[in-house]
């Protein structure tokens, strides 16, 4: 856990993070759905076992042990869905910037009349809001 800590986490939050992380890890380790489910249930049971731990020191100890164990048993290839961050196809088809639509030819725009009419209205509203908030811009060119 060598990440830079930017906010204070309560004990409960850390436990929840640990649980979620460990659940994710199960998907990396097992190929069979049934195995994954089985070990997830086992994991839940282990967490539930100490759900109502009255002694805070012991709870802290358990949490640290759990985090250590998770780190030690990381899978070399973490499980990622292809299009989610870190996956193989992430960023493969970058989203088109909105202003590209401004560069369309009027004939092209005419093919989607409703959409562009709505878009023009929204744009005008946006500019109005902007000018109300920050004052009038000297540059008359807007994207």
């Amino acid at each position, binding site marked *: 856990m060598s990440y830079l800590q930017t906010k204070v986490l309560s004990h409960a939050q850390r436990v929840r993070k640990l649980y979620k992380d460990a659940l994710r890890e199960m*998907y*990396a*380790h*097992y*190929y*069979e*759905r049934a*195995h994954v489910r*089985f*070990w997830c249930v086992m994991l839940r049971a282990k967490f539930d076992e100490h759900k109502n731990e009255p002694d805070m020191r012991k709870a802290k100890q358990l949490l640290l042990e759990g985090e250590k164990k998770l780190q*030690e*048993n*990381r*899978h*070399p*290839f973490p*499980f*990622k*869905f*292809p*299009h989610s961050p870190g996956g*193989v*196809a*992430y*960023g*493969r*088809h*970058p989203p088109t910037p909105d202003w590209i639509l401004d560069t369309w030819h009027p004939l092209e725009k005419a093919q989607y009349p409703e959409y562009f009419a709505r878009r023009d209205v929204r744009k005008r509203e946006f500019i109005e809001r902007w000018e109300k908030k920050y004052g009038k811009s000297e540059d008359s060119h807007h994207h």
Partner: protein
Amino acid sequence: MSLNKKLMIPILCAVFLYCVAMFLWVFGVYMVGSTEQSYMVEWQFFSLCSSVWSLPIIVDYISVIFSCFVCLISGSVSLFSMSYMEGEVYMKRFMMLIMAFVGSMNLLIFVPSMITILLGWDGLGIVSFALVIYYQNKKSLAAGMLTVLVNRVGDALLILVICFLVNWGEWRIGYGMTGSYSMLVCFLVVVGAMTKSAQIPFSAWLPAAMAAPTPVSALVHSSTLVTAGVYLVIRFYSTLIESQEVLWFLSKMGVLTLLMAGLSACYEVDLKKIIALSTLSQLGLMMFTVGIGFPLVAVFHLLTHALFKALLFLCAGSIIHSTMDSQDGRILGSLNYLLPFSSSCLVLSSVALCGMPFLSGFYSKDLILEGAFSGFSGVLEIVIMLMGAGLSLIYSLRILLVGVFGQSYGGGLSMYETESGYVVCSICVLSIGAIMGGWLLQSVWVEVNGFSLVGVFGKLVISVVTFVGLFYSFVNFFLSKILSKKNPSGVSWFLSGMWFMNLASGSFLAGVGLKLGKTMHLCLDLGWMEVLGGQGVFSVLGSGVSLSYLTQKGSLLVYIRMFMVMLIFLMVCINVFY
């Protein structure tokens, strides 16, 4: 069915490449291969300082068959990319890159001159870089940089070879020439070839290059580009035989790569990366075969391997395309129900890779194993090689078990697609190659027919190894059905990380290089080079200029006096020294 203009380009390319392949097969292979004649055209530009500048073109069985297969595979890939790249806007650019690749590959194949080989070699490096970063995300860029930089190392070594070959007076290769620095030249060529074929210190780029689109991986990173290194070594073999130490080194590195890639493939979960690692292990096997002295067998294996590996990649590509870019083995599964055609061809090619009798891989792989027994190699080497061969069975079956027969964890069935006609067509062509290729080649090319005599013991060992691999993987598969807790240990980290090769060639080298570069910049560029170079010369010249102004300041009488002084001085000097 109306083809729009965008799709015309790959169709044209595919038809063209198929026609070339057909032409090369019918005329080239039956004319050259069966009569065992080689033709060589050489155009000599000029001879300067006793170095011959010439453009040789060699047409022999190796080059013709290799070129034929390159065209066949790239034709299939073009056809395949009709479906795989259907969302692509710049189809023309993609096909141009593919054709540039085929062009530089053929330059490499047909012209056995070091300089032209360097041209083709550089072309391959650049095109493969452009193809790896084809998807414009960060991962591809990182992989592309790794690829192109490792290939650059090879280019630099080949340029060094060209420099040293000036001593031999020509840059043509493949005549069994030797000369001064023979050993160094051989070593440089072999290490250069190892970068292209991703042998052990340079292995990290091949799995990373799987960030390219799958048709590209099928063409570039499995069957043709990476075999360019092996091809160079084979062409250079007649010279290499003179320096046995280099061959010894090559065989050791090859067999280590075989083991490393095989073990890593057994841990990898990404479908494409498993195939890439299996390619790597087969490349190691080829290098090993050349190293122990069977270049012809290595060529044979190279050719059959190209066929079934391209098929394997196309099937994987079809699967990846149909399941919305999923290539993780833990997501994939049950493909035998979902994509029966692709998965059956996947099975076929995996089986060919394992060396199933009478499929392509059988002919070549069997020859290699037999050759290893009769060649000059140590016991440990052979043991590791047999382990590697056994591992090839394990990882092939692993692909099938995790992908084809396992449980699926994708989205809903509505997300799946089926193969289009183009995919079916291209896969069919390559399947025929994978089934018949070995047999056809052996029938055309009589030289590789059973030449080695192996005892009963050797044969037995080969079959035992094969069956042990099969047995082990099945046992492992059924054991995995049993509920047990798996904890990855340090060893598995080591093995799955390709023996930490990617760390060594990525972070380590980059770190050292950057540090060294900074030191050089500070000490040389901003330090000594300034003092001894630009600034120093400038100050010296400045004082010279002021001296010349000083001497030109006086009047005519001063000049005459100076002349007299000079005259007497020179007279004294000359009379003293001469």
